[in-house]
């Protein structure tokens, strides 16, 4: 355990010096505040508090931003050690590859947690300040924070996997961007195309829930929207959220980091220094 924590402490220090903590936090706060300001439009008529509206917007933001931040922080994790030449020495230490990755994961997850907490927190402050009833939405805010960390952990581990497979930072960066595009953008477009072409037939009712659960980003969106009962405000793919029981999307969210970590360790074990 000490070895994992020592690795985490070093990684956190490195990320802090490389300004990742600042960049991640500034990005989240900035986007969250913009959303909070823009989110004032749909209030009133919908009959929900201001914070719930903001949280629906933040969910859509987090689906894009959290995986992106996670991949940006993680693509260098193994490939960077290979390129700098620090990996052979590290692997002669009595520390397992799982412990190395867990140390990095703890540090990077902590940075993501800090960034989303400050970002969402800033948006929540704006919401509560302009609408005192908004404190009702604090439960949803807490849910959004911990699910964002789980989503981030999944993409951090995916980033480690790509980093170990590519073995060069430039290659890993390319793979990371490709994964982000496919998992977060193209996947949803493909699902929308499926719904449109199928016209509400069997494919939509049978395959769509499974397809949504199979993608951690969609599971995250579905879980948060359904749990906050904000489906009405969200629209789009999120509209399917009601069809999926909460426990299913929660299970998908909890399992994905473990699956991704197992993949990362398997890929890292294949790296010979």
């Amino acid at each position, binding site marked *: 355990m*000490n*070895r994992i*924590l*020592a*690795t985490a*402490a*070093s990684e956190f*220090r*490195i990320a802090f*010096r*490389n300004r990742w903590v600042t960049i991640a936090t500034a990005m989240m706060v900035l986007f969250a505040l913009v959303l909070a300001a823009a989110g004032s439009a749909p209030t009133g008529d919908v009959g929900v508090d201001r914070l719930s509206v903001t949280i629906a917007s933040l969910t859509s933001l987090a689906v894009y931003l959290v995986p992106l931040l996670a991949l940006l922080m993680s693509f260098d994790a193994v490939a960077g050690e290979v390129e*700098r*030449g*620090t990996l*052979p*020495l590290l*692997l*002669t*230490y*009595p*520390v*397992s590859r799982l412990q190395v990755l867990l140390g990095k994961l703890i540090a990077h997850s902590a940075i993501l947690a800090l960034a989303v907490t400050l970002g969402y927190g800033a948006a929540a402050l704006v919401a509560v300040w302009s609408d005192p009833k908004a404190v009702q939405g604090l439960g949803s805010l807490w849910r959004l924070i911990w699910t964002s960390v789980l989503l981030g952990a999944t993409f951090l581990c995916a980033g480690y996997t790509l980093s170990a497979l590519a073995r060069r930072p430039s290659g890993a960066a390319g793979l990371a961007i490709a994964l982000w595009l496919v998992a977060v953008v193209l996947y949803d477009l493909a699902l929308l195309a499926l719904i449109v072409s199928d016209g509400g037939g069997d494919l939509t009712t049978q395959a769509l829930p499974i397809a949504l659960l199979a993608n951690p980003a969609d599971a995250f969106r579905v879980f948060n929207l359904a749990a906050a009962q904000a489906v009405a405000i969200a629209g789009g793919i999120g509209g399917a959220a009601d069809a999926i029981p909460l426990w299913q999307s929660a299970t998908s969210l909890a399992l994905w980091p473990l699956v991704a970590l197992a993949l990362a360790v398997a890929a890292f074990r294949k790296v*010979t*220094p």
Partner: protein
Amino acid sequence: MTPTLKISQLTKRFGEVEALQAVSLSLEAGKRAALLGHNGAGKSTLMKIVLGLIPFDGGEVSVCGTTPGSPAARSQVAYLPENAAFHPALTGEEQLRHYLALRGENPKLAMDLLARVGLEKAARRRIGTYSKGMRQRVGLAQTLIGHPRLLVLDEPTSGLDPVSRRDFYNLLDGLSAEGTAILLSSHVLTEVEARTDTILILSGGKLVAEGTLSALRAQAALPVNMLVRPADGHAKSLASALPEAVSGNDGLLRLTCTQAEKLPLLARISALGAGVADLDVIPPSLEDIYSHFSRRDGQ
């Protein structure tokens, strides 16, 4: 007593290339062995196998009585890679605290270790600002953590100035006196000469020579060179008295003989008396001995 490191009939192939062919060696506690060879002779491959970083194809390797790379072996083996590299954003102290924690030692020892390699003043600066020699010292400091039983040092003195190199060998002397076995590699024999117990010469993946420096010197039986400077006006008479000598443009006479012929030849030269202004005897250099063994396979 079982040797700290025992290798028998070790074979390693990279595709078609035989990187190591039936290499056997053994290293007792407190002994220092120098592994010499050209680039690509198999030194780094051998070291990586001992460290458990890469698998091998045949033979047996035992490190501190266990399999290389096992947790038990890794906790007793320290490694200094060629061109030691660290994360540039960390300071020397932070990097060593991390390594201490990974070995289950107290991170507060970091400053002591840095002081032992003369880096205490730079400890709080980022490694990114260090010179190559300073990074090498950080690498050396981390090998001192927790009394390792086996030290594996890949080209440890490259990038060190002569004074640091002497300090470095003094450190090694202290470690081997405490019972640490040391395996170090170099392609410069002059750097390792007097400071090691055994010299191992690798060439094309084969161990072509093994022994102390004097044993290797005797085994190689390389010729001795002599330079004779004639006194003024005696150049011609000297050249006729030593017909086997080759006369150079610098006016010196060059002679070559075997070890056995050395003393008789010296007697002949000294018998020439006042005709000889000066005489230099040049034994085969370390580089000559090294070249002799490493090229024996026609490489």
